[in-house]
């Protein structure tokens, strides 16, 4: 599961952070429910590795589904010393199965943010 953004610590207790937390929890549950352990493991792998090495993954196809999830940078890992991280820095990866059932991953920079994906 993608990690909770530490840069939202300042907003804890409010509607904004609760909304994000709820979305993560429900989305991850839906992913797991629909795709089982295979995609859950994929989800964890992608979240940990920052999708740079092998965008094509082969998984047993069950039915086509577009899965979109977030990986949120822990700013202390990526930001230069003293930099102020933008809240909710993220990239979005679209993961889907093509007609042959091959899992495809399309990585792109998050809308509105100048997030740099760590390679």
């Amino acid at each position: 599961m993608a990690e909770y953004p530490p840069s939202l610590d300042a907003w804890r207790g409010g509607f904004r952070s609760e909304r994000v937390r709820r979305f993560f929890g429900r989305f991850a549950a839906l992913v797991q429910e629909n795709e089982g352990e295979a995609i859950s493991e994929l989800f964890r792998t992608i979240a940990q590795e920052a999708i740079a090495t092998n965008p094509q993954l082969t998984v047993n196809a069950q039915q086509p589904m577009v899965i979109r999830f977030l990986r949120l940078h822990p700013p202390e890992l990526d930001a230069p010393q003293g930099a102020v991280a933008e809240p909710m820095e993220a990239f979005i990866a679209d993961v889907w199965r093509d007609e042959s059932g091959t899992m495809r991953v399309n990585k792109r920079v998050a809308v509105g943010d100048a997030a740099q994906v760590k390679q």
Partner: protein
Amino acid sequence: MKLMQAYFTGLSNYLSEGWNRFWFTPTDSRDLCRLRLPLGALLLVWQLSFTPDLLRWFGANGWMDIALFRRLVGAPTPATALDHLSYLFSSSPTVLWICHILSAIVLLLFTIGFKTRWMNGLSFGVILAYIHRAPFLNGPTEMLLTMLTGYLVLAPSGDYYSWDARGRAEAPTPTSGATIARRLIQLHVILFYLAVLSTQLASVTWWRGDAIWWIAARPDSRLVNLDWVRLNPNVMNLWTHAIVLSELLFLALIWNRWFRPLVVALSSLAWLSLGLASGNFGLTITLCVAHLVFLLNSESPRSAKTGR
């Protein structure tokens, strides 16, 4: 036979008179007008909390863009706003921002009581629009806000403490609408308590007395570090059981005008403590606002003494 007939006739009259008295006796709407103020402020804060992330959520490439909405909800893209009770199904940032700003203006006007009846209805539409646009983001807070806003439409909530009330020469007349709105809100809050309590009592952690620890141990949402609770089982048990007890007392005594302020205060404290442990102050504060419908009404001991 005549005795039985007389009994059932009397019973029918008693129930019907009680029903009419409970629901339809014209009452003053002052308490609902007072409720409008914190409710409107809460709605405004809730809606404005979308502002930093509006395009992140609903933009063309947002986290809850229309394509994902279709996938998750299993529905086609709405052709009109009425299809899903939302006007936020647009990918254009300009349109989204205009809708967002206009929505905030509506909620502000509702709060200050300008054209209150109209703004109340529009505010109900605003909250439905955001809820239906992103069903994945909703929780009990949104349910309570919708309930309060929707029921308040039935009452003249702009008769007092509003822009509309300025310079009014005559005192507003009591209405049945105020009574109906008040009773609906009260009953819905009680149903909410019943749902919460039944869920808690179905869970072994609440019986065992360590539920508050499981709530406080989640690192992604809590406001303060409550790890010390684990080392103090007595505190943990007392805290857990006190929350359940406060809810039981609320349900048992809320209709008694003398115990009402006490159980409302106890329940509010319990929910505030839950907010501290869970980090979900949105729900806590919304429920405390909902409690006002019990405290401010004409049946409180203070108003009984003053005769209003």
